[in-house]
């Protein structure tokens, strides 16, 4: 094949004709979309519009509400970013943000540690492991309304089982919900208790994908249990770990019922998280603007955290 014929072939290829084809070399009239493609798009349009309406409309509507000074009845007037400036200057917002941080960090890492430990335990052959797995899932499966009622029964009054236990241990009258610090601890423990089954399932599935031969090889090389855990198990389940952290972070930051049903955000706002603050601002103070603004700030923070953790996942994939 001469140089010319090679160039001609490439030219043909660029024009949409096979290099060996016999079609004319010239500008190829390309149709942007075929009739079939248009038909498919037309079929997809109703679903797309529906999806946009379902997902986009509430967000856009909420964004509009966050820059107005309305209530649940009256949309109010446009006030620009005054609601955002207002909430960011409120000590109650920062107090709620701090508790949200404590609640989220405890909720994510507390439940992850317990979930991972149980997943590792359940990986070993223990009698009736399946039954244990089902029982351990119960806190996740039981509706939070039921759990909160049970926990209230456990800790609320001096006649409740845990205060009686504390009394018998010589700790005095322990006010699990009435003392601001203890109330925070109780709410965080409640969250860990509710959430560890989810982490256990995530970690169990991640551990199931780890090749057991790697441990055999490490053992032959003289690695101990801890070294195998830190150098084999953890790196191999890190992707699932990051995903579970992202999910649990979202669950914790957006968790309303766990806190509201147990303490209502009290005492004296000590367990008021941002989502509880947003709810109370909108539905108890009837101030939709600042309430929705709080929700938007929360969303922004969640997006940032999620992006950071997703980058970690990508890093893991590349490595």
């Amino acid at each position: 094949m001469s140089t010319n014929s090679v160039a001609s072939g490439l030219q043909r290829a660029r024009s949409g004709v096979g290099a060996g084809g016999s079609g004319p070399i010239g500008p190829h009239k390309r149709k942007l979309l075929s009739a079939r493609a248009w038909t498919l798009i037309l079929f997809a349009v109703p679903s797309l519009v529906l999806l946009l309406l379902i997902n986009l409309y509430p967000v856009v509507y909420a964004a509009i509400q966050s820059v107005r000074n309305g209530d649940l009845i009256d949309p109010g007037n446009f006030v620009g970013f005054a609601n955002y400036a207002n909430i960011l200057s409120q000590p109650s917002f920062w107090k709620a943000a701090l508790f949200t941080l404590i609640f989220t960090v405890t909720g994510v890492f507390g439940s992850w540690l317990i979930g991972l430990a149980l997943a590792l335990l359940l990986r070993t052959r223990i009698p009736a492991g399946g039954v244990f797995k089902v029982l351990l899932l119960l806190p996740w499966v039981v509706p939070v309304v039921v759990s909160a009622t049970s926990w209230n029964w456990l800790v609320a009054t001096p006649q409740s089982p845990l205060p009686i236990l504390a009394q018998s241990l010589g700790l005095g009258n322990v006010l699990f919900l009435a003392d601001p610090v203890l109330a925070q601890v109780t709410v965080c423990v409640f969250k860990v208790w509710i959430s560890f089954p989810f982490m256990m399932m995530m970690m169990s599935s991640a551990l199931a994908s780890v090749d057991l031969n790697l441990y055999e090889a490490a053992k032959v090389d003289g690695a101990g249990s801890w070294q195998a855990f830190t150098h084999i198990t953890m790196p191999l389940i890190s992707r699932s770990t990051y995903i579970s952290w992202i999910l649990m972070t979202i669950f914790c930051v957006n968790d309303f019922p766990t806190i509201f049903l147990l303490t209502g955000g009290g005492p004296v706002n000590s367990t008021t998280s941002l989502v509880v603050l947003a709810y109370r601002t909108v539905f108890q103070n009837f101030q939709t603007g600042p309430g929705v603004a709080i929700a938007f700030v929360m969303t922004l923070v969640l997006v940032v955290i999620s992006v950071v953790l997703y980058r970690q996942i990508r890093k893991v994939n590349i490595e």
Partner: protein
Amino acid sequence: MTSQSNGAAFTRRGFIGLAGGAAATTILAACSTGGSSSGGKPIKFWNMPWGSTAFNAEDKKITLAYKPAAGLGAATYQVIQWANFTQTFSSAVASNTGPAVSSGGGTQAFQFEAQNKIAYADNLLDSWKSNGLYDDFLPGLIDTMKVDKGYAAVPYNLDMRVMWYSKSLMDKAGATVPTDWQTYLDAAAALKKIGVYGYGTAAGAGAFTGGHILVSWMINNGGGLFDENHAPNCVTSANIEAMQFVLEMVNKGYVDPASSTYTSDNAQSQWKAQKFGLGWDTAGLAQNVGGTVGPDLVVGSPLTGPSGKKGALYFPNNIMMYKNTPSQKGSEAFLTYYFQNMKPLWTKGTGIGLPPLKSITQTTEFQASANNVKVIEEWQPIARTWAAPGGNALFLGVTAVDGTPAMDTFTQGILGGKVDAKSALTTLENSIKDTLKK
């Protein structure tokens, strides 16, 4: 052999017949008047679950038994659940698909009145002067509904906050039933000696009674939260004295230290466990506690405050009419019928709050409960609304204190005992101002 229906049996003739039938039904339904034989468009009545399930069943029966005069519409009935009721009403009213007549939250009428959505009840109340209904209302009740432009609603059922004591525990402690603040302290001290709390209350998740009682103490001392211009005015000597009194009880251990986080159920458990011997709750406490302890609970008489005054907080729940009605005359006719026939809601023990009409309080069934009679005879006449001491008529601003974060924080702070009265009241006043300032 009988034939079996299958797809092939669904003929074109059959389809046309079915479609024709359906169309005819639709047309007939569109032409009907919702059961009214008189031709007017139906009056939509939305009511809340004010009592047990028996309440709405009985209420519906009363509503649907309404026979309108010629030209007026019959009534339809809809139960609106308390969950998210504000959104339910606001979206319906905003889209003009709401009711013509409804009950709702205690301050709902005043919120909608501010939005120009309420049909004032002035003409209705005038018409009730001639049929005896107007004079049948308990004293001062109708006035609580008066706003600048007219009556925003009509009183429907009363939610009272009263003092309760356990007869057996008071006897055991050798305490006498308190009549003023000092004797209250004496009774609480006596109860403490037998390991019982003398200030039973609840201010935890969803329990607003704790805050209501604090305001009751203020009103009992001639104070309250709002002045005559409806502006928050909390830092007054009467209020400071009242809160200092409560703080004294907290510090002396008369108040259960966990009560700031008690739900209503927790408080009732404490009454059941005989850990509360004296305290404050709704008029339905004895019924809610039930069992062997319920019948032992007795409503005390209102206390005389240091200022020599009596007073307590109460909530006159109400029924309102909306401008969006097929006929204002129809709304008023229905409400007249409803108020003339609603007696069974109380006489049949449906669990609704206390009645607004004297005639119902005089029935044999109502008089059978000594506690209820005491509440109506002794507490209702001295009770005031959120608007005290500036006035008695409710207004939009009370939404800033009724179950709001500001009031919760204030209540939990006082019941926690780690604040001083003046600074707590100052914080409350500032929070109310912030909430009102939009």
